[in-house]
């Protein structure tokens, strides 16, 4: 096993550069 295994996740720092679309529902962690 590698010492560090990284899960596939959406990178919030990278996605912040795109901004939000405002289309999400009102409720946060749980689409």
């Amino acid at each position: 096993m590698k010492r560090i295994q990284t899960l596939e996740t959406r990178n919030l720092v990278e996605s912040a550069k795109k901004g939000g679309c405002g289309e999400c529902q009102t409720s946060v962690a749980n689409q």
Partner: protein
Amino acid sequence: MIHPFKLNGYNIILDVNSGSIHNVDDVAYDVISLYENTSKEEIAAIIQKKYPDVSEEDIADIFEDIETLKKENKLFSEDPFENMAIDFKKRQSVVKALCLHVAHDCNLRCAYCFAGEGEYKGERSLMSFEVGKRAFDFLIENSGTRKNLEVDFFGGEPLMNFQVVKQLVAYGREQEKIHNKNFRFTITTNGVLLNDEVMDFCNKEMSNVVLSMDGRPEVNDRLRKTRNGEGSYAVIVPRFLEMARRRGQKDYYMRGTYTHYNTDFSNDILHMADLGFKELSMEPVVASPSDPYALREEDLPTLLKEYEKLAVEMIRRRRNGNGFNFYHYSIDLMGGPCIVKRISGCGVGTEYMAVTPCGDLYPCHQFVGEPEFLLGNVFTGVTNQKVCDEFKLCNVYAHKECKDCFARLYCSGGCAANAYHTTGSVTGVYEMGCELHKKRIECAIMMKVAEACDANTFAE
């Protein structure tokens, strides 16, 4: 900022700002935990003393991996979001959703209900079709260009006003064509009035139904009683089972409340799973400290262990092919909410409002009946803009306590109503709620790590 934690045999590093998650061995866990505040020479000395078999070359490799992850913004990433929070004070929001209190009355007498006996500190009343219709018009008028709108039928017990629910759904379907909107309807019920007609209607029109039940018979019946003081378990369970079956075991939630009387609440969740329900949720009661069922500070260690116990059991059941979903453990690492949503919070008082049977507007269902939070009325619109502006500040950066919290981008600063009822301020922090939520987030992340280990689906 990172959050290293160990749970269920996994060593996990959460990179707070990027949301990156790393499953690491003991050596890497210690190196990463020391990395920000200790020199590389000191780290190497500490590691070699603790792990005599680890070579200098091994440690150098770990340092190199850490630096690579840092460059990729996956470890020790900076917080670029705080300035975004400032803009929330100025932003123009649209109303996206209404909670329609179609009944301020209830056919159960649940001891812990924040609505009292359904009447929210006022008189028993049902919403008329005219008021409901005007609420729909208010929502459409204040929704800007947003196409997808939501209406939740709530109470009290909304099925005590089922005819109006049906009329309002028909009105919404008619209006959505005229205004190019799309209504998503949901309903929360205690199940007492569920019958074939209601089930068929809900399965046709409701995107989600929430079915209220607390778990084991003796737990449910201790606090969820009928008007005559009888337990409700025997009445509601067969109806809920039929409802879940007719919905194909999806698009519903069993929603329980746990209290000081059942701090072993994982057994209530598992009881509902054993009955055959697949979509489960259980929330801590929020009550006055003087209430005998209120959670106490000394309950906290037990409650945290219960969340861990539940997560471990859910992994076991998933591996055996009989898994179920628990709302708080259903996080989507690839498609969850964007950063704007994570900072701005739940939308209380800005994007979401509650409407009482007479048409009064409140920031959310948990503020109904609190005179200082009356926002206006569906016939006159929002007249108390000052309170609306106060809720614009309910974002994660409004709480100094959240600054150093690893869970801040998962909870968005917590529930304003819980904060108000426990601290007297909507921007306060309900500390027990924080501790419980942090544990839920750790458990949810650990379950994702377990899944990735089982399927070997790590990033290259």
